[in-house]
């Protein structure tokens, strides 16, 4: 199981839950499984097969350009943050 930290704006989709333990061997699988619990969640994160441009996926605290087939380990923490850039 991975832990999904639900961003505050999307908690209504998840019945107010801030964290969910969800199975998923890959990022895609995890997000699909979250979507089953929180209908609409997947579409807020993924668009046209990619992470939406205004957000970023952080795995274990590190935001990066992860592919949907990114493997997840049991205990991985996944969350969605605003896209950010550095100078």
């Amino acid at each position, binding site marked *: 199981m991975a832990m999904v*930290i639900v961003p505050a704006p999307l908690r209504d989709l998840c019945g107010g839950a801030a964290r969910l333990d969800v199975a998923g061997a890959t990022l895609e699988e995890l997000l699909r499984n979250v979507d089953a619990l929180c209908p609409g969640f997947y579409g807020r994160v993924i668009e046209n097969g990619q992470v939406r*441009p*205004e957000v970023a996926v952080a795995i*274990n*605290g590190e935001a990066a350009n992860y592919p949907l087939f990114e493997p997840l380990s049991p205990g991985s923490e996944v969350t969605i943050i*605003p896209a*950010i*850039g*550095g*100078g």
Partner: protein
Amino acid sequence: MTTTERSPYKVIGTRPIRPDGVEKVTGKAQYGADVRLPGMIHGRLLRSPHAHAYIRRIDTSAAEKMPGVLAVLTHHDFPAARDEMQELGEGAVNLKELSDNILASDKVLYRGHAVAAVAALSPHQAEEALKKIVVEYEVLPPVLDVMDAMRPDAPLLSETRFTREMTGQKSEKPSNIASHLQFKSGDVEAAFAEADAIVERDYTTKMVHQGYIEPHNATASWNADGTITIWTSTQGPFVVRAQVAEVLRHPISTIRVIPMEIGGGFGGKIPIYLDPVAALLSKKSGRPVKVLMSRTDVFEASGPTSGTHIALKVGVKDGVITAVKADLAYEAGAYAGSPVGAGALMMLSPYNIENFQIDGYDVVVNKPKTSAYRAPGAPAAAFAIESALDELAHKIGADPLELRKKNTAREGTRRVDGTAFPRIGHEECVDAALNSAHYRSPIEGPNRGRGVASGYWINAGMQSSVVAAVNTDGTVNLIEGSTDIGGTRASLAMQLAETLGLPFDVIRPTVADTDSVGYNDVTGGSRTTFASGMAVHEAGLDIQRQMRERAAKGWGVAADAVSYADGRVTLKTDSETKELSFAEIAKKAASTGGPIVGRGSLTARGAGAAYATHIVDVEVDPDTGKVTILRYTAVQDVGTAIHPSYVEGQIQGGVVQGIGWALNEEYYYDDDGRMANSSYLDYRMPTALDVPMIDAVLVEVPNPGHPYGVRGVGEVPIVPPLAAIANAIADATGHRFTSLPMSPRRVVEELHGLS
């Protein structure tokens, strides 16, 4: 300098002379303005005198007839851009906005917005021709301040922009608020109700510029075979290539971008402004075209960072920060995309806080589109929270550093987005500050005070590629694709030397163009020494492997029977030990299998976050308002300092920029949206005469995500100074400043009740 452990390295941690130093100090290094090509002509841009206006008509016919003019350009010459977001290497970009910011189509959104371009035989002929271009504007009222822009009755920059939420919802009416974000945890109101002390204030900062010395430039040659060559000053040649390809709808493989030496960037040389213009002028004229910005162009039409307004409320109970409520509104400039997300994410990261609600608003205004500036978004957020913590410390009678230590984030603490920190070094920074000679010394004298503040920056990894070719004399040419802004030729060569067990001076690093090395993301996000360093390490291991194979072949044994260490390959058996040096194997490369070339190409993961804690002493002249920096100490967790001098230089540079931001710098606009101080005479940046020696204290908490423990160091040093100086001024005067800059005029006005 302090280090937490004895260095296990031979090259890393030393201070060799930078490979590009001689060329730079002798004036031989080639910058963009130095480009001279056969037949080259000169481009200039016509810019809007209005901050907000519709373009009703552009007539270039008279300009086209001017002597020496070979090409004139408007947005009509650009392919129609798609109104869609696309990832182009510096984050997602709206293609239409990217194109419109280069040459406006239907509307100008800030003074200095480019509307047309001319290429002529001389710069003067181009400038004269610009005067003949007729642009008919329908002038609109501008909105220049973030809070004004958020009002329901504010002039709209775009009738089709609605406020976006992460939920996918949009506002009912068009708005200048492009998006809203939120981080939330715990029960904020209950925590405030139980707090011992609360500080609640509004903090404001003004739009400021990175202030790089070298103006933007681009020279382009649209060649007869349809290929395009661009010489430019950029933090990311591959991003230039990707964006030019998209704006001009030209195949990416036919565009070659040659990064020239760069005279500073700090994030401001990631976007493109001139490159597609120079390319199209070259296409139209049949000549190579060079386009340069003036200093006024740089101020008015490149990418400064946001002015901000932050409403903040912080509560403590028993010395523990128990509640934070923050509303952050950041100016994005003409198009959406301020760093408010980063500001909101970074704001509380030095601390462990259970209850918080942070709301962020990305707001368009009639000013240039903001771009990254060193830890974008974080300094303004730190100005607010670190000022409030200082005030709370005084309210509850706590030492301000002890308050920070008591509430520090550690491994396992959750950031506001909910994820747990790995090994981090904020507590070590606070401890080093507490134990520093500076903090333990008294601050004495009238009108003098001391301030402290902490800061955080997330750092980035992203993509890097390098190639390392072994020469027959045992030297190695390191080909990399990251623009060298802060000494990365040296820091990367040092990591390769360490990996190969060779002296630094046998590695010869070169920054290559986009045709000559694999893809590299920008030099930004404090990523190059970290991420390209990982690629260099990988290339070094690749060379080690090939060296072992060559030696093993000669000795007639399997490669795994030999070892590589300290620049030598060794075969040890019970009866004998055989050795070959790196140079001996290199010399025989041709007869043992051909060239030995190492390759490193990766997406770097494991970027370690950076923390800093600063101490500053100031003296305030109550009559003139002048604030003098008496002493400054910057403590920073730098992971492993590859080249300590360059790490110290990054810290000192960041601090000086922070001092300017705190005390003097601001975009000063009149009511019509004209910047009134668009020159270095009037835009007051610190000089060497304004600052003392900045003492950099390097705390080395190695990053477990990097083979040598590297953390990015370039951005976090600009995060604490704004608040540290405000806190020092409050200590000196008893007056709390919540608006930047704390310029002499504002200090006098506030101290004497004149504002």
